[in-house]
């Protein structure tokens, strides 16, 4: 007779008055494959842990976002926010879909150029553009979004040196009813600073003011904030028209749409509470359509959406290393994915799903990564199906920020795979090797000899 699958025996105290989850069917099923490719097979072939990106999900998500806007407004342009995930394969998928590039450093700028994005389709944001970066961007006619007055004056001074007319926008910050307000970046609308900056640009006659930009925050849980941003930016556009008869070509709403991840401590899952692309599109497009901007002057709506476009397409697959009872009597599970690879566990309750069949029983456990550090917690007190050493799991919705904000700490970083539309698996980033890390080190000669 075939043997039954083995599950670890568990016992849980029942707390009267508190709903007891054991015995309740867990609401999800195992993830055994991604886009038709076996999870266990990928782990076997490429190691554990391993990141996986679904090209299909990227394209589908992009199309959903794009059409939410395109059905409501005639001129829409996305620019892929490089910092969210700047793997070339990911960027190029977005570029194939029609996205321009949005960068915030010389490094990202060069990466976009190397990816063959037309320089005039690169949006250059951020407070840290060096003089060299600015010269390059000015000569290339890239779209420079000015962050502060120091940068504005540097650009004005470069125009005579270079004999060029830079294409610029200003970044505007404002009160949109969402707190904390991001006033660190750009010029403030509410105290008149943004209008002041625009006047200085127009009066200098040295810059081609083509846009207005705002990035009001990230993981915005209300679409209404974008409506307020749109009203304030439209107001500036109308004033430019009135005073200078100047028409701006685009209004860039930055990023900030929430992905369906659940924030730590949230009462309801993100998939229930986050606005949809349609909600955001309705707020943004109506703010412009209903403004005093004349229809002939309607600007292109630019969007630098990051996490909401890529989170769903990213997964990390891994393996359970150990189960441990802690001194306080609670359960813990140690896995081979730590915060070095999953930075976003600091703010999300990531969904961890076994990659094999599991019973309806759950246990309350804290999921630790493998780092020798107290902060290495992937989930605190999570009700999860029972897993044992050697079991595999899939952590979903991790495509944003993890593959850029990761740390080479204690362990080498694993491979990143992309599953294409036909179900072929491509390695899009190799796993790091010792030689990759030490090749950047230089040891002073006198330290080379010892005998231990």
């Amino acid at each position, binding site marked *: 007779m*075939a*043997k*039954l*699958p*083995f*599950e*670890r*025996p*568990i*016992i*849980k*105290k*029942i707390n009267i008055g508190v709903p*007891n989850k*054991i*015995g309740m069917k867990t609401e999800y099923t195992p993830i055994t494959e991604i886009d038709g490719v076996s999870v266990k097979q990928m782990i076997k072939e490429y190691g554990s842990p391993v990141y996986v990106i679904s090209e299909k999900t990227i394209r589908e998500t992009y199309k959903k976002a794009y059409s939410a806007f395109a059905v409501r407004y005639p001129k829409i342009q996305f620019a892929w926010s490089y910092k969210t995930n700047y793997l070339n394969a990911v960027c190029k998928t977005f570029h194939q879909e029609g996205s321009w590039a949005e960068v915030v450093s010389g490094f990202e700028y060069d990466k976009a150029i190397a990816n063959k994005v037309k320089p005039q389709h690169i949006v250059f944001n951020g407070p840290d553009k060096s003089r060299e970066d600015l010269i390059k961007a000015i000569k290339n006619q890239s779209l420079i979004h000015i962050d502060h007055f120091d940068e504005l004056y540097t650009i004005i001074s470069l125009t005579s040196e270079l004999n060029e007319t830079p294409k610029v926008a200003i970044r505007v910050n404002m009160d949109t009813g969402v707190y904390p307000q991001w006033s660190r970046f750009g010029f403030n609308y509410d105290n008149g600073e943004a209008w002041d900056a625009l006047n200085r640009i127009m009066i200098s006659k040295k810059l081609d003011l083509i846009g207005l930009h705002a990035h009001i925050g990230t993981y915005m849980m209300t679409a209404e904030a974008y409506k307020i941003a749109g009203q304030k930016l439209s107001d500036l556009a109308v004033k430019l028209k009135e005073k200078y008869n100047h028409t701006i070509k685009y209004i860039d709403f930055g990023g900030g749409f929430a992905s369906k991840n659940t924030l730590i401590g949230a009462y309801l899952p993100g998939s229930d509470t986050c606005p949809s692309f349609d909600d955001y599109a309705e707020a943004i497009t109506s703010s412009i359509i209903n403004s005093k901007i004349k229809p002939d002057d309607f600007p292109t709506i630019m969007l630098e959406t990051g996490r909401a476009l890529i989170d769903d397409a990213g997964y990390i697959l891994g393996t359970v290393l150990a*189960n441990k*009872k802690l001194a306080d*009597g609670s359960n813990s599970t140690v896995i081979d994915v730590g915060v070095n690879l999953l930075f976003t566990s600091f703010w999300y309750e990531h969904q961890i799903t076994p990659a094999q069949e599991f*019973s309806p*029983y759950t246990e309350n456990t804290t999921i630790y990564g493998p780092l020798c550090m107290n902060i290495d917690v992937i989930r605190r007190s999570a009700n999860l199906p*029972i897993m*044992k*050493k050697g079991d595999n799991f899939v952590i979903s919705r991790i495509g944003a920020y993890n593959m850029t904000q990761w740390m080479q700490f204690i362990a080498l970083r694993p491979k990143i795979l992309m599953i294409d539309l036909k179900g072929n698996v491509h390695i899009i980033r190799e796993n790091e090797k010792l030689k990759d890390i030490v090749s950047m080190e230089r040891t002073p000669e006198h330290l080379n000899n010892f005998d231990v």
Partner: protein
Amino acid sequence: MQLKNNIAISENGFIFDPNTGESYSLNPIGTEILNLLKEKKTDDEIINFLNEKYDSDKLTIEKSLNEFYSFLQEYNLSEND
């Protein structure tokens, strides 16, 4: 491991400890082990039994069993030797 004598085990995975008034819930294999303990089976007998019935090696079973025992101790469900 010896279970306290007066612990009541229900068929569907709940137990009641009359000494403390606490109740607990278990998964099916947990209930199965408690019943084996009630029958005064030794650890070796339990491990062999589980190894026959389930698809796992003895070492894994033994490790899981010890972990399970540590929870029984934590909850004062076992006799102190």
